[in-house]
């Protein structure tokens, strides 16, 4: 048996989201079973079935040098944006 991760799209134009998984002997059974489990009530517009072993997963993050300066935590973009907008409106030519 093989595990297939199931991604579900509710409507066209929306992103696929992880819905769960299916354990099946092959892709054909996974197809049939996924239809019944994730689509029989019309709740999905499309499904993606991905064999779990095809997923390249990343969980380890290297941050050995503590490069905090690369991150934006504590940097108030809101205040800067407000200032920038004010400057822009002052500089804008009079529409009247």
């Amino acid at each position, binding site marked *: 048996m093989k595990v297939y991760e199931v991604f579900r799209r509710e409507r066209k134009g929306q992103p696929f989201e992880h819905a769960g998984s299916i354990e099946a002997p092959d892709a054909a*059974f996974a197809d049939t079973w996924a239809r019944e489990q994730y689509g029989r009530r019309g709740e999905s517009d499309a499904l993606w079935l991905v064999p779990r072993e095809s997923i390249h997963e990343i969980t380890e993050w290297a941050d050995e040098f503590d490069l905090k300066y690369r991150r934006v935590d504590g940097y108030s973009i809101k205040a800067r944006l407000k200032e920038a907008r004010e400057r822009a409106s002052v500089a804008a030519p009079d529409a009247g």
Partner: protein
Amino acid sequence: MSERASLLLTLADDELIVGWRDSEWTGIAPTLEEDVAFSSIAQNEIGHARALYELAAADLGTDADALAFDREPSEYACAPLVELRLLDDWAMTIARRYLYEQADQVRISALVSSSDPELAGLAAKIDREEVYHRLHAELWAERLAGEPRFRSAVEELWPYALGVVAPEQRDELARRVGLPLPSNSLLQGHARGTHTDELEPLWTEMTEVRRSIPGAQW
């Protein structure tokens, strides 16, 4: 009873009883995924029965529940194939699912081109759902094709399967399944109109709650 009403009851009774039998697998199918799929297919069949009973009920001046539950076992028009209790034999169960779907396709596709628009419309709607049932059944039949137990199950149920379709549709079913037509006496023994001993216990259980308070509004 009109020819149309009796045809509708034939189809509805088959779908109700096969759905009921398949639902006996809920909770005990070989894997969880198959349990969900098989139960869902069983429920679809009962849903088809409901739609067919409603159409028949309008012709007969009654309602779908009365047709499904208030008749005597001998009045049901289902084929013996659907009556058989096959629990807990998965090979026999899949053999019936496979043969039933093949037979059902033969008669449903004939109805899709019916001159009766209501009948043709409902048949087309049912057939759209049956596509997935057929995929499921064929997938299993293919997977079990090399198993002697499955092959003998198909052979054992084959004369029953021919009882699902009208006599003039038997050749087409035989071509589709790839098995020869058995002798006439074997066909007669499993034809629609005869019932197995297994229908009555099923009926007793199926109608138990409804019979407990006759005439109740549920």
